[in-house]
C-alpha cells in the first residue's frame, strides 16, 4: 500500500476501546479506487489496535479472488495487486474476512479460487453481522 512511507504525517497510535469496526466492501477491485480505500481504512484501524473485520458482499466478493501473481493495470503497477494486499490483511490484525455465499454463487466464483483467509458465511448471517458490530463503514 505504501501508505507508511507516503503518509509520513499519518501518526498512528494505539487506542483503547471495546468498540469493534466492520468494513463493508461492496465494490469490485480496479474499476474504482473504493475497493483499495476500504482496505486502507481497515489497515489503519488494525494498526491502531482496533478490532476490525471485513464483510465482502455483492461486487465486493470479486476482491477475494486470489490473483497475486497477475500483471495489473494502473495504480496497481507497484507490483502489489489487490489480491496481495488482501492476503496481507491478517498480518495487520484485520479479520475475519467474511464473504457472502450468495454473492459468490450468483457470480459463478469458484470457491477454490478464493483468498486463503476468506471465511464463507451464509446469507442469513449477513444481517446479524451488520447488527453485531458497534461501528460499520461501507465502501
Amino acid at each position, binding site marked *: 500500500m505504501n501508505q507508511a512511507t507516503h503518509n509520513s*504525517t*499519518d501518526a498512528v497510535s494505539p*487506542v483503547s476501546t471495546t468498540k469493534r469496526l466492520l468494513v463493508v466492501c461492496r465494490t469490485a477491485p480496479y474499476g474504482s479506487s*473504493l475497493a483499495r480505500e476500504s482496505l*486502507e481504512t481497515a489497515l489503519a*484501524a488494525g494498526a491502531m489496535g482496533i478490532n476490525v473485520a471485513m464483510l465482502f458482499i455483492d461486487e465486493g466478493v470479486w476482491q477475494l479472488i486470489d490473483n497475486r501473481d497477475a500483471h495489473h493495470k494502473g495504480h496497481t503497477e507497484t507490483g502489489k495487486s489487490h489480491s496481495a494486499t488482501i492476503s496481507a490483511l491478517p498480518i495487520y490484525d484485520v479479520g475475519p474476512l467474511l464473504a457472502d455465499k450468495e454473492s459468490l454463487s450468483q457470480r459463478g466464483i469458484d470457491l477454490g479460487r478464493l483468498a486463503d483467509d476468506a471465511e464463507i458465511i451464509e446469507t442469513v448471517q449477513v444481517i446479524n453481522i451488520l447488527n453485531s458490530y458497534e461501528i460499520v463503514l*461501507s465502501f
Partner: protein
Amino acid sequence: MKFSIIILGAPYTDEAAETAFRFAQATLKKDHEIYRLFFYHDGVHNASSLMTLPQDEVQPTSRWQQLIEEHQLDAVVCIASALRRGILNKGEARRFSKPADNLLAGFKLAGLGELVDAALQSDKLITFGPCS
C-alpha cells in the same frame, strides 16, 4: 449528540458533497455537535482553493469554509487521497517539490487514523457516497 460525517464525492461531479453539506447544516441547526468532517476518496476536492464557478452559482468550497469557521469544525482531508488527487498543502508541496499548493484554509490534511478516531468517538457516523 456527536456526529461525524464522511464525504466521498467531489463538488459538481455528483451530489454527495451537496447532500453532506445540507445534512451538516441541519445537524448544527438541531443543536447536535459535529465531531469531525472527513473528506475521503473524491471528497478531497471539496478542499480545493482553485475551484472556480461562475459568480452567480453556489460556491461549494467557500460554503464549507464558512461553515467550518463559523462552527469551529474539525475538517480533515485524507492525506493519501488528497496527494493522489492533486490536493496539497504548503508542507506537502515543498516535500514533493510541487509547483504550488491548493488546500483551502480551514481544512487540514491528516491520515486515516482520524477517520477511525471519528468512528470511535462519535455517537453517529454517516457516509455520503459518490455516484460511482
